[in-house]
């Protein structure tokens, strides 16, 4: 086999060495990709939480026609394939699509929109379950104190805060791990819309295993840190407030 600049799959130690170099030297390309990933996913999760938490709580509290159907729908949407969501958002944002005039396709904003669509059902559905359980416990007391449904909704969201953190966390997991949707609506453009997952997919197919692996390590570490941090926060809070 001809010697080339790219590492061979067999040169495992060489790949690991280059990987560590990339990470430890704080490679700017790598840093850019990591930061964009975080920006897209965190923004998407924040928006999805801002909508999904009150929406899930409302589904738990209010009785209206079509409620059952909406609950089934949100649960079903939790498992939506990211590529399909990507495709739908693509169609909406493309020139000919209803939102084409905004020119959002192949921008980080488009990726955020796609991830919001993916994360929202998860946050809303898990929130509904947690809030419904807590409502069972609180309903009589809150009604006795004179709380309206609207007041009860915010009370329940606050009192369920430590379980809801896990709902949001599940959403973050989904957002940071998916490739399909951001690939389609972002286009994986270098320095513009390239995030960790899309970069990994590209670099592996190009054979640059060192960069792919470096990104993989960073992605894994970030996700572990976020999960551990939130888990500790959740258990500590739950233990304190019961």
């Amino acid at each position, binding site marked *: 086999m001809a010697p080339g600049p790219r590492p061979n799959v067999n040169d495992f130690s060489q790949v690991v060495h280059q990987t560590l170099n990339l990470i430890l030297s704080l490679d700017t390309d790598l840093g850019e990709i990591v930061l964009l990933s975080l920006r897209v996913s965190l923004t998407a999760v924040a928006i999805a939480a801002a909508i999904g938490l009150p929406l899930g709580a409302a589904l738990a509290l209010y009785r209206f026609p079509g409620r059952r159907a909406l609950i089934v729908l949100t649960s079903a949407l939790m498992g939506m394939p990211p590529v399909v969501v990507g495709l739908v958002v693509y169609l909406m944002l493309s020139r000919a699509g209803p939102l084409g005039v905004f020119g959002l396709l192949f921008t980080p904003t488009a990726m955020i929109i796609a991830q919001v669509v993916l994360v929202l059902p998860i946050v809303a559905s898990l929130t509904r379950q947690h809030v419904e359980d807590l409502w069972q416990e*609180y309903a*009589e*007391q809150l009604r*006795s*104190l*004179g709380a309206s449904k609207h007041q009860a909704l915010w009370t329940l969201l606050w009192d369920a805060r430590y379980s809801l953190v896990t709902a949001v966390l599940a959403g973050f997991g989904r957002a940071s791990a998916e490739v399909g949707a951001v690939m389609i609506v972002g286009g994986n453009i270098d320095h513009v819309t390239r995030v960790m997952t899309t970069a990994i997919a590209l670099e592996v197919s190009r054979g640059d295993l060192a960069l792919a692996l470096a990104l993989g390590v960073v992605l894994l570490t970030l996700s572990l840190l976020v999960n551990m941090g939130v888990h500790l926060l959740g258990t500590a809070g739950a233990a*304190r*407030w*019961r």
Partner: protein
Amino acid sequence: MAMKPPIVPLRLEDVSFAANGMRRIKDVSLELSPTGTTVVIGPNGAGKSLLLRLCHGLIAPTAGRVLWNNHPPEAVRRRQAMVFQRPVLLRRSVTENVAYALRLRGVPGHRRGAIIEKVLARVGLTRFAAEPARRLSGGEQQRLAMARVLALEPEALLCDEATASLDPAAAHIIEDVIGDLARGGVKVIMATHDLGQARRLADEVIFMYRGRVREHAPAATFFAGPENDLAQAFIKGELLWWRRRPLVEGKDRDRHE
């Protein structure tokens, strides 16, 4: 403040309540004494808790009407307060639990502090003010529920077995507060199966059995010797609810209704 019309008397007109095809409250008609403490006694499953919930408007009767001085319970619920057998406390601090109730009633922030301090002192929880409410012991939790009620200054108080799972010391504080409220003009309606407590607090007794009111009398009359045989057996401590058939009233077909 302009004088509001009083919340009493409380009247129940042919009230029935059914759940899952079972009639749990059957044709109850009552007018409670407008003052003092009314104690609802009776064995488990007699319908005491349901009766209180109907009075508070937490459930609606399937037939008949509940009227607080001609108002439906929901309309005057903010002038009432209820203490439950198992206190439901928010996942917040002791202080915050009382503040929450005050906030719901629209008491402005600058006035809440003094009220909270006063009611926590009344039930002996001052030193726990900053503690998470749910880490308190059972007795302390019920005392906090009582403090929350005190802060609301209700005109009527409903207590559903408020001391059933408490030790004597905690029960004593709760009884003491209830007694104070009643003497202060608050109409108290409490369900209990603790006969000693009924004797200590009652001005008026309602004896319930299988969803019906079997006797409604001033406490002195009732404890001197209830007219109803079931009530007699109950205050003698016989285990009524083990009987397959009521002792008297041969026409009583409650079991088959």
